[in-house]
């Protein structure tokens, strides 16, 4: 065989290997093929940044639907849906008066699937508040906050409060009568805190009334500050579930 022919064959072989090599570089930690052996089942979980939240093996008890009702996982799923739909809504939304309200009308009447997008965000948000509360009830009724899981209950209370604050700050953004007066009522309650109450309200609203400054502050809190905070607390929450010995079960 001529050297030139050998080189061209090698070049073709390299080209043909490209898809396989890209695949192997992407999933280098795992083993090729369907995970049908214990080794492959393990490396599928440990070798994947998303799946490695899970332990490689879990207790049979943890899989029972009538034990967890998937409530914690559903809360996380709703958070992911809210992040996705929220970012998409941000493309169509101006946090200014009165543009914010007209953007809502545009979403309903002009933007393709805009109404569906807003509905998904709204109902997921209400659902998340309810599901987080139900998750808390599940954890209580199954005694899952007991040692060694005390601290994760505390983190969970923080997550509940952040969920409420996220929902509350998002409530103002449509800038309709419902939003305006709900936030007026809500922030008037904060006003009643001794000493710092009125100062806190001023800080939150950027003034003494719910106005354009309040809309901008709630927008920044809703889209940047609170999601980052809740993301950090969620990471701690999930990490601690593993560190405390997986989800609770009969002792």
């Amino acid at each position, binding site marked *: 065989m001529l050297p030139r022919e050998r080189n061209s064959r090698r070049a073709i072989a390299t080209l043909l290997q490209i898809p396989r090599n890209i695949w192997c570089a992407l999933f280098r930690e795992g083993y090729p093929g369907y*995970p049908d052996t*214990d080794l492959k*089942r*393990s490396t*599928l*979980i440990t070798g994947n940044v998303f799946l490695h939240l*899970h332990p*490689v*093996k*879990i*207790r*049979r*008890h943890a*899989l029972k639907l009538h*034990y967890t009702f998937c409530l914690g996982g559903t809360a996380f*799923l*709703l958070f992911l*849906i809210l992040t996705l739909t929220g970012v998409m809504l941000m493309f169509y939304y101006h946090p200014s008066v*009165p543009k914010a*309200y007209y953007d*809502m009308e545009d979403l309903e009447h002009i933007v393709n699937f805009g109404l*569906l997008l*807003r*509905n*998904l*965000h709204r*109902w997921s948000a209400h*659902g998340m*508040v309810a599901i987080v509360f139900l998750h808390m*009830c599940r954890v*209580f*009724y*199954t*005694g*899952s*906050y*007991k*040692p060694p899981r005390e601290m994760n209950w505390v983190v969970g*209370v923080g997550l509940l409060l952040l969920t*409420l604050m996220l*929902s509350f700050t998002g*409530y103002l953004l*449509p800038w*309709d*009568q*419902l939003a*305006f*007066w*709900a936030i*007026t*009522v809500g922030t008037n*309650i904060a006003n*009643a*805190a*001794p000493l710092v109450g009125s100062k806190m309200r001023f800080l939150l609203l950027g003034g003494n009334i719910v*106005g354009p400054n309040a809309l901008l502050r709630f927008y920044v809190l809703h889209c940047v500050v609170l999601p980052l905070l809740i993301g950090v607390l969620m990471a701690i929450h999930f990490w601690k579930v593993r560190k405390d010995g997986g989800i*609770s*079960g*009969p*002792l």
Partner: protein
Amino acid sequence: MLQRSEDREMFQPNSEKSYGLMEVVDGTSVMVEKAPEDTVFSWPHLVMLEIAWAMVVIILLHVISTYFNAPLEEIADASLTPNPAKAPWYFLGLQEMVSWTSPFWGGILIPGILVVLLLLVPFVDRRLVGVGHWFARERWVANTLWTVFAVGTITVILIGLYCRGPNWHFYWPWQDWPKTH
């Protein structure tokens, strides 16, 4: 250490000893001080369940969002106060308590105490009984207290949502509100 069947070694019995290592058996972990194996692999048991459940939730949300629209009222107007003006539903419990007492007691102190109590729960109730069982009989005091808290929370929210009319007066959901403006 994971012992795999593919690199299982064969051991020849030592003729000078009355005992010997016959075989290293397949196992997934060291079994010292462990109950009988009661675990399964996350793949596929857990991951598949999560994917299936996520699909159900996403489909359900799309169905709900197709048939029920998020509310949108008139543009915000500081000079036009609705009567009653209601907080978001999850804060209606606070608003309800404020209406019974004062903004300080109902809006700050009582909710503050409730949050502190919530945070203290695992440091007060530390007895390791009934973990991993729904409504364990041994925990009836704790379960009763929580049920009172949960039912109370839901009740005040429902009252705020459906039973509060103009000037925060009580009306049954089927009662008409008097004309105020």
